């Protein structure tokens, strides 16, 4: 408590700086997987993808990032265990940010795919154990989170499989794919607008001051769905069959119609990603802030101040603008096989899964969910070839990232404790 009175401000500033740095990292690196699919399928140019990402990542982070931020802040460590020793929590959270950031830099320089979510969760568990022992960790909640890491790609796979099969049956495998596309795709557009709004509103726009009842949420969601559908129909109106392109590939014109749908799913991917990943950067910051502000008390349930989410959102956008667009371009070059009719299924499935997880307060990996969704499309025989060795490498990355994050976090915790005092 004296410690906090003495060093509180410095620690808070450190937390803000490192939190901002993590957010920058998320924008620079992580968003690329979410947006790369849209660039690879030529639905968006890099500039357009950047604009979409900046707007919707921000919106997702600010409007829907609260629950996961709460989990990172106080859902993994047991705040009760830190009573009277709030400063340890502060060291640990700052250390976690450093650890995750370090790991992110290192793995990226080695060319390894890394999940920011897994890094930060591993880091938090790490410092909690070394600070106060295994009892400081809420193992039941942690188990649920670990389970969600397995369930979310499976859920993405199942949804994407069903979505793509429905598109095959209703549109692609019919006598007149082009006109069936114009007929049925508006319904998919409605679904995108409706489902994403509904899930977002159900769990809390409280922090922006909107307290909506279920009926109100339903009606607003329906309204948004209809708006999206109307906008989509307008955009599709201008598309006519292109006989020249169709000679090369009979479904070229149909894919152009799907491309409009994929613009909307691209927005939803950015939104979903922002809602889940902003917490990786600002969850620890929120924890530090609440301890420092209350002068040492570790309250679990006070709401996350919205300026913290704002900080995270801004950090992500800066990361995107300064570096992220390059990574998006690189990844987009490799994902050219994901044409709009496949891409929308994968993106819609992944976005819905991620936003639902965000609503439930579960930090998951957007990238792994998207991988699951793409595999789902592949299982519906929608893609020429998929490298399923990647699944093995994902498991391998879990095995490496969690201990790495934990160990680094322990190291930084000890260092901080030595500097600022136990």
């Amino acid at each position, binding site marked *: 408590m004296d410690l906090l009175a003495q060093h509180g401000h410095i620690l808070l500033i450190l937390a803000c700086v490192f939190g901002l740095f993590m957010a920058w990292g998320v924008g620079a690196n992580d968003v690329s997987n979410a947006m790369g699919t849209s660039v690879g399928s030529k639905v968006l140019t890099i500039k357009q993808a950047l604009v979409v990402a900046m707007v919707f990542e921000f919106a997702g982070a600010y409007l829907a990032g609260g629950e996961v931020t709460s989990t990172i802040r106080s859902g993994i460590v047991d705040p009760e265990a830190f009573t009277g020793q709030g400063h340890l929590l502060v060291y640990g959270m700052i250390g976690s940010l450093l650890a995750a950031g370090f790991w992110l830099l290192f793995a990226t*320089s*080695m060319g390894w*795919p*890394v999940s920011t979510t897994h890094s930060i969760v591993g880091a938090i568990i790490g410092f909690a154990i070394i600070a106060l022992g295994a009892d400081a960790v809420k193992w039941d909640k942690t188990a649920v989170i670990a389970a969600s890491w397995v369930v979310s790609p499976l859920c993405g796979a199942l949804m994407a499989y069903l979505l793509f099969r429905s598109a*095959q049956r209703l549109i692609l*495998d019919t006598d007149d794919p082009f006109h069936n596309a114009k007929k049925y795709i508006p319904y998919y557009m409605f679904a995108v607008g409706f489902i994403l709004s509904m899930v977002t509103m159900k769990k809390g726009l409280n922090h922006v001051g909107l307290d909506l009842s279920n009926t109100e949420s339903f009606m607003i969601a329906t309204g948004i769905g209809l708006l999206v559908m109307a906008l989509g129909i307008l955009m599709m109106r201008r598309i006519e069959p292109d006989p020249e392109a169709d000679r090369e590939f009979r479904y070229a014109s149909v894919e152009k119609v799907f491309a409009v749908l994929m613009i909307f799913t691209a927005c939803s991917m950015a939104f979903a990603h922002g809602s889940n990943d902003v917490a990786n950067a600002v969850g620890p910051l929120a924890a530090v802030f609440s301890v420092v502000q209350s002068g040492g008390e570790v309250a679990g349930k006070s709401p996350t101040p919205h300026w913290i989410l704002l900080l995270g959102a801004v950090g992500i956008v800066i990361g995107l603008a300064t570096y992220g667009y390059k990574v998006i371009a*690189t990844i987009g070059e490799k994902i050219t096989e994901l044409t709009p009719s496949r891409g929308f299924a994968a993106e819609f499935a992944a976005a819905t899964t991620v936003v639902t997880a965000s609503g439930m307060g579960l930090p998951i990996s957007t990238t792994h969910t998207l991988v699951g969704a793409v595999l789902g499309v592949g299982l519906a025989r*929608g893609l*020429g070839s998929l490298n399923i060795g990647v699944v093995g*490498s994902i498991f391998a990355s879990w095995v490496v990232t969690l201990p790495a994050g934990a160990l680094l976090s322990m190291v930084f915790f000890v260092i901080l404790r030595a500097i600022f005092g136990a």
Partner: protein
Amino acid sequence: MPIGSSLAGLFGRSPIKPLQEHIRKAHQCAEMLVPFTESMIAADWQLASDAQQRISALEKEADELKREIRRRLPKSLFLSFPREDLLDLLASQDKVANKAKDIAGLMYGRRMTIPAALAEPMLRYVRASVAASSQAVKAIGELDELIETGFGGHEIKLVEKLIEDLDNLEQDTDEQQIAIRTQLFAIEKELHPVDVMFLYRIIEEVGELADRAQRVGGQLQMLLAR
């Protein structure tokens, strides 16, 4: 700075486009037989030699494509249709190129003279065989449309029609083969016996080219059946 991404690593190189490129190359070998036969009939050995060498070069290129495709098919690649089917298809496509090379090599090696009476039917016959090869290319060209619809019923019907046409083209070459053999039989006593034997052989080989093109269609049909 290398960027690792599980998502980017997920997409393997699809073997479809290389497979289509391979059969186009094999067909180029077959197509070349038409100008080759024309120059053999005209006894223009220089032109014939050029054509024969061109066919050999194209066949080598097809072989190289085949080896590339085989190299790039690791077990960890999950394909939308069985790997064995793809490899079988590749093998039968390659046989078309090989046959074209064999025909040109044999004819040119013997400086084969086509009897005047057989010149026109022979040219027509070679053209018919090449048409079968062209039809096979058309059918294989539908592979990306097949994947686009996830092997949907409509597309399959379309491809089956193409394969049916291929069968008819092969049937046509069979009939032409019988006709030419009959014509040759009528005049064989007037010709050198060894030349006659090789003429019969070439007639058979050209028919075999169409057979092999048809077999590509058959492989494709088996792929669809799964």
